[in-house]
């Protein structure tokens, strides 16, 4: 390791040479650099202290220049300070003697080659012996002083790209060719090469012998295939000992002095950077320079100094780069990759440096020395060393770090034994459950799989549906969602109830319904209802009681008659059935819902006593309780005729306005007096329905203010959940509601709902829950979502006109009345009946029929290759 002298800190310097440069060469003592180009041949001196370039001599003088002056390559003799050779593009080799007395230093022109000389190179020990390679496919050895060609080597290959004497094997030289070959020659035998091998795909632009005497048989080649390959050429069959896949074609390469495993490369085009590679870590450049603005054409290390690199470029600059100012890509790379899978896997790729440091202690407890395989290990002194980044130890460590960089890939799996189901609504969810739920989503999947989104086909009341779903949510470990389902079930049980009854009683079919079906049914039923006798018998399966209720038929019974959705009889029935229990539920729970809605408190179930939750939470009990209430209410209201109920309300109002939040239980069922000791703060909705005006209303309009409130509360709750990234519950509730009641009653933005549904569908798709995906698409009322199911890839086309069949009647084309259609009904060729389903046909002649018939036909004609009558196949 060389000493680092603080005074000898030369920065990267550069100079404008005044034209595009093709090649450069450094003289032995590093004091001068010659740069050659198309119309350029200049010597620059390098200041030893500052590193500044200064123009020393311009060899490009005089009048008549000629093609001899256009140099493709230049070489400075290492043994003779005064001797320079340039290779001209016209095939001439020009030797320059700096010691010449006159201005024109050119002392010999050797015009032996017939085509461009691509490379010229001095013998490392015999100062006047040069070798040249040319596009004409020959190498020639000259003695410059004697001005004669000593020998011609015919490669019998393609044009020569590079040629160089071996620095240690006196008689050997290597040459590379455009066809990808590399040949090793002994210049004493001019007729045949020692060995020849295919080194690259495409041209081998450059080669260089290793400068280290220990590596005297090592040769590096670089070519058009952007590879640098290192060869051991000792035997007659050279073998590749290393390679470096670089970014672009390698135009030139130079071994770094005193660094056995490093070399610098430049590219032929596009890439202007100079890369320094380390063979031990070959995929990432050890360092690079990106100072040039055009293709870098020539590079050379300072002789015996690994810190400085000269380079010239087509942009007309000559640089001396300091390795300390190079860019080390390994310093800036991201060494870790990380991602989370929808299945709960975590993939983490990390630098081994960090990962394996704690593994210094082996599992057996022996703290043995860390094997090098584990990568670079930090020592106690790291901090100290890092504080002095210029120290040699630091550099050594950095080097080690660079070379031993290795990643390890670790996949974490969220454990799957999370089957904890909440027992009741007050169960608390621990943090780890939350984390697991959010990473792996067992609860989400469970709920998605088990939710019933519509109960109409199963003759399930809305309330029952909600209760069931609430149980599922509870099982999945989400008491909050369970509560929401229960509340929604309570809110909408009347209207939903009615629809179920109608669905069951009115149309005795168990066909699965879509929304459109329901809508049409409704109209049909509305028509039918008006014609029916005035007394309807409503069978309430769940409540088990039969309520006979007189309904006046005709138009006056319908308030919102346009769609037949909300009918006055519904409301009346509610009242009669004792759904006064509903207001109490609202009022008592209003604070609950609102606070729940606003701060999202998850564990604050304490404002409801267990007793209460029991009544709601456990279905059988709940219904029994309900029954009692219903009976009570019937007892209470059943006697009185409807107008006089207003009078009774004054009593009710009083209890409502109690500071406890008011409960009808207190009057109707005094045994279940609420024990909440702290008066709850007033809630938002107060003014709206605690005022006299709202309560003392005509009985037919009574539910309306509550209806408005419940819509508001429900939608607020849904929006709150969606804001907290739970789209499953809102979407499920909306779908369930809309399958019973029209969805436009909830004051929700359709775009919001659309987005929730899209997100939910996306999540379902992520877990490949295609059945649930299809169900949501089917139940959705948003046109863009429903449209997803319409995009089928199976289409029926008319046999005659090839147009798509209408969806409703896929056996009859829209244009069937046209003459050409009527003449040709789509019939089976075998049984002559109209084909109404799958039409199997010969693609060539449209001959075909029922799939079954065709299959039969095929069976019969097994011996014959085709089944088509016309022998198309």
């Amino acid at each position, binding site marked *: 390791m060389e000493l680092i002298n603080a005074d000898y800190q030369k920065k990267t310097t550069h100079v404008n040479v005044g034209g595009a440069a093709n090649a450069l060469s450094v003289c032995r003592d590093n004091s001068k650099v010659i740069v050659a180009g198309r119309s350029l041949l200049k010597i620059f001196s390098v200041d030893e202290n500052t590193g500044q370039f200064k123009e020393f001599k311009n060899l490009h003088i005089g009048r008549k220049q000629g093609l001899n002056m256009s140099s493709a390559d230049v070489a400075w003799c290492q043994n003779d300070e005064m001797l320079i050779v340039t290779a001209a593009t016209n095939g001439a080799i020009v030797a320059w003697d700096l010691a010449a007395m006159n201005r024109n230093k050119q002392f010999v022109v050797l015009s032996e080659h017939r085509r461009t000389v691509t490379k010229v190179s001095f013998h490392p020990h015999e100062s006047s012996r040069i070798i040249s390679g040319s596009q004409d496919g020959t190498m020639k050895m000259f003695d410059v002083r004697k001005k004669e060609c000593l020998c011609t080597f015919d490669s019998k290959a393609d044009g020569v790209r590079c040629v160089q004497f071996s620095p240690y094997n006196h008689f050997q030289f290597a040459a590379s060719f455009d066809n990808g070959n590399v040949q090793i020659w002994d210049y004493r035998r001019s007729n045949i090469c020692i060995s020849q091998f295919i080194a690259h795909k495409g041209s081998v632009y450059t080669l260089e012998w290793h400068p280290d005497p220990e590596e005297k048989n090592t040769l590096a080649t670089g070519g058009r295939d952007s590879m640098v390959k290192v060869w051991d050429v000792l035997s007659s069959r050279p073998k590749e000992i290393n390679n470096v896949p670089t970014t672009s074609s390698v135009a030139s390469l130079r071994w770094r002095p005193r660094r056995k495993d490093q070399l610098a490369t430049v590219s032929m085009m596009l890439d202007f950077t100079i890369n320094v590679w380390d063979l031990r870590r070959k995929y990432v450049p050890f360092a690079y320079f990106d100072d040039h603005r055009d293709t870098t054409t020539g590079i050379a290390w300072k002789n015996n100094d690994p810190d400085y690199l000269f380079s010239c470029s087509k942009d007309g600059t000559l640089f001396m780069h300091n390795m300390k100012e190079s860019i080390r890509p390994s310093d800036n790379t991201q060494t870790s990759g990380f991602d989370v*899978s929808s*299945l709960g896997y975590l993939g983490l790729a990390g630098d081994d440096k960090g990962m394996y440091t704690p593994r210094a202690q082996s599992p057996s407890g022996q703290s043995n020395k860390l094997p090098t395989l584990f990568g670079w290990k930090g020592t106690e002194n790291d901090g100290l060393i890092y504080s002095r980044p210029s120290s040699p130890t630091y550099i050594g460590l950095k080097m080690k770090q660079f070379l031993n960089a290795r990643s390890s890939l*670790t996949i974490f799996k969220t454990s799957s034994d999370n089957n904890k189901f909440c027992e009741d609504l007050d169960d608390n969810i*621990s943090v780890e459950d939350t984390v697991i739920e959010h990473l792996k989503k067992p609860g989400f999947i469970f709920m998605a799989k088990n939710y019933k989104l519509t109960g109409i086909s199963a003759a399930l009341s809305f309330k029952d549906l909600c209760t069931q779903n609430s149980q599922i949510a509870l099982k999945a470990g989400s008491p909050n969602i369970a509560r929401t389902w229960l509340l929604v079930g309570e809110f909408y049980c009347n209207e939903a109830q009615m629809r179920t009854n109608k669905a069951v009683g009115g149309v005795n079919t168990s066909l699965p319904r879509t929304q459109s079906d329901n809508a049409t049914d409704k109209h049909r039923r509305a028509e039918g209802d008006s014609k029916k006798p005035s007394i309807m018998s409503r069978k309430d399966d769940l409540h088990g009681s039969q309520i006979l209720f007189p309904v006046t038929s005709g138009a006056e019974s319908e308030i919102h008659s346009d769609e037949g959705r909300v009918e006055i009889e519904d409301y009346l029935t509610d009242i009669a059935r004792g759904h006064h229990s509903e207001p109490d539920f609202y009022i008592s729970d209003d604070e609950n819902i609102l606070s729940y809605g606003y701060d999202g408190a998850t564990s604050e179930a304490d404002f409801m006593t267990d007793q209460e939750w029991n009544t709601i939470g456990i279905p059988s009990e709940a219904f029994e309780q309900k029954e009692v209430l219903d009976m009570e209410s019937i007892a209470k209201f059943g006697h009185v005729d409807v107008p006089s109920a207003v009078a009774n309300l004054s009593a009710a109002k009083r209890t409502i306005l109690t500071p406890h939040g008011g409960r009808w239980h207190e009057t109707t069922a005094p045994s279940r007096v609420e024990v909440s000791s702290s008066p709850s703060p007033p809630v938002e909705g107060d003014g709206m329905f605690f005022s006299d005006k709202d309560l003392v209303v005509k009985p037919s309009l009574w539910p309306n203010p509550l209806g408005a409130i419940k819509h508001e509360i429900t939608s607020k709750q849904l929006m709150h959940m969606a804001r907290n990234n739970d789209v499953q519950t809102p979407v499920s509730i909306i779908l369930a509601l809309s399958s019973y009641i029209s969805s436009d009653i909830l004051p929700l933005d359709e775009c919001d709902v659309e987005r929730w549904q899209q997100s939910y569908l996306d999540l379902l798709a992520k877990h490949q829950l295609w059945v649930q995906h299809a169900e949501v698409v089917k139940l959705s009322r948003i046109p863009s979502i429903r449209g997803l199911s319409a995009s089928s890839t199976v289409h029926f086309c008319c046999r005659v006109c090839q147009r798509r069949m209408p969806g409703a009647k896929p056996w009859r084309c829209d244009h069937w009345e046209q003459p050409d259609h009527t003449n040709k009904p789509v019939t089976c060729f075998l049984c002559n009946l109209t084909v109404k389903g799958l039409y199997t046909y010969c693609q060539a002649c449209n001959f075909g029929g029922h799939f079954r018939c065709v299959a039969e036909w095929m069976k019969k004609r097994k011996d014959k290759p085709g089944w088509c009558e016309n022998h198309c196949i």
Partner: protein
Amino acid sequence: MRLFQIFAFLFSVLVIKYKDATDGIGFSSDEQNAGDASAKLVLLLLCYLANGFRRFSFTWPQFRVELFSTHFHKHKDLIHDVSFDFFGKRMATCSSDQSVKVWDLNENEEWICTSSWKTHSASVWKVTWAHPEFGQVLATCSFDRTVAVWEESIVENASSQLNHIWINKTNLVDSRTSVKDVKFSPKHLGLQLASCSSNGVVRIYEAPDPMNLTHWSMQHELLCKMSCSCISWNPSTYRYHAPMLAVGCDDPSNSTGGKVFIFEFSYALRDWVKIKMIMTITDPVNNIAFAPNMGKKHHVLAIASEKLYIYNLNPRLNGEHNQSSSEQSDISLQEVAHFADHNSKITRLSWNDFGTILLSTGDDGKVFLWMANYMDIWKRVGTIKNDSLNPFELELVKNVPSSGETSGQKSSRISFKRFTQTRGPPPEKPLEPVYKGAYY
């Protein structure tokens, strides 16, 4: 018998040594059961020799050994990115060794490397999956200044084995410098690809015909004037949210100002408009990620720099204000949290599917889990550490007010199982891609 025990002990030491030397054999044994284990060790050695260097695992009470071949599917250089596909069943890794590997989850919940191929002629920085609706498509970006798009095709070879072959569909060569990140757009925007390069140019490509992945046209070129390092699409499908991109820059100097840019597509101008620059972040940004915004109306953006930042972006919606055509939609930024819990720079971020948990990892090799409570206050809820004896246990942070009850102790039910990269050779029959074409 005693002699036998001594032999067994020596052998176990040998095995342990060998393990350390090759990193190939996992070994754990109860000290007291060394004698019991001795016979098994011999058996094991025989199995090992018989199996050659193929992996097998061997379970006995209190005794578990796994042998597998080393260096079989290892990347030969640093891994720069890990990416799971839409379903979370496939994983792609890319490395400086110029290759990409695709790993598939098999029935036994093991990750098997099904293909590995050379993608670029330099370090591959990022790999990303397209939505499966467009097929099994990957995009990679590299130091060699290109972006490549790959599509899988499964072919049957001579011995009727299914081979996964990734075909290069296109190379996007517009960049003049290293391409640092590449991301496919969310599905509803069609097949678009955003890339950013280290000279500060963000390019947005589009495949006009999703069936033809070979043809990509560059739609837009956005300038950041700083070396970009990462890019993120806003995944919102909300009708009133215009497409949005966030770009992070890794310029090392603090004086160059804000390092995060937010672009929004303006339908009126038909171009991307820079609508915001986060001025407060002046450290180089390593990663940036929009949260999936399920039902939210605002966007959540996480930024990994020297610290971890979480921002809320509240857009003023086009639909609400009905703005004039030239006026760009406004957005208000709100920093909701910043953390420096990693005692090093934070390198990677990832959100879970719900957008509720943010996972971050830093140069310290730890993974932190972050969650917001109902007040939108972000807290650390867990750490995944690598410990030599209990590798990768999730440790939960105490006093987390996230969901009511706090439970500080280490949970026995969360055990993060550790797989190493060195899994065995793939099974005889490669996996059937069951999800192929299943979407819509």
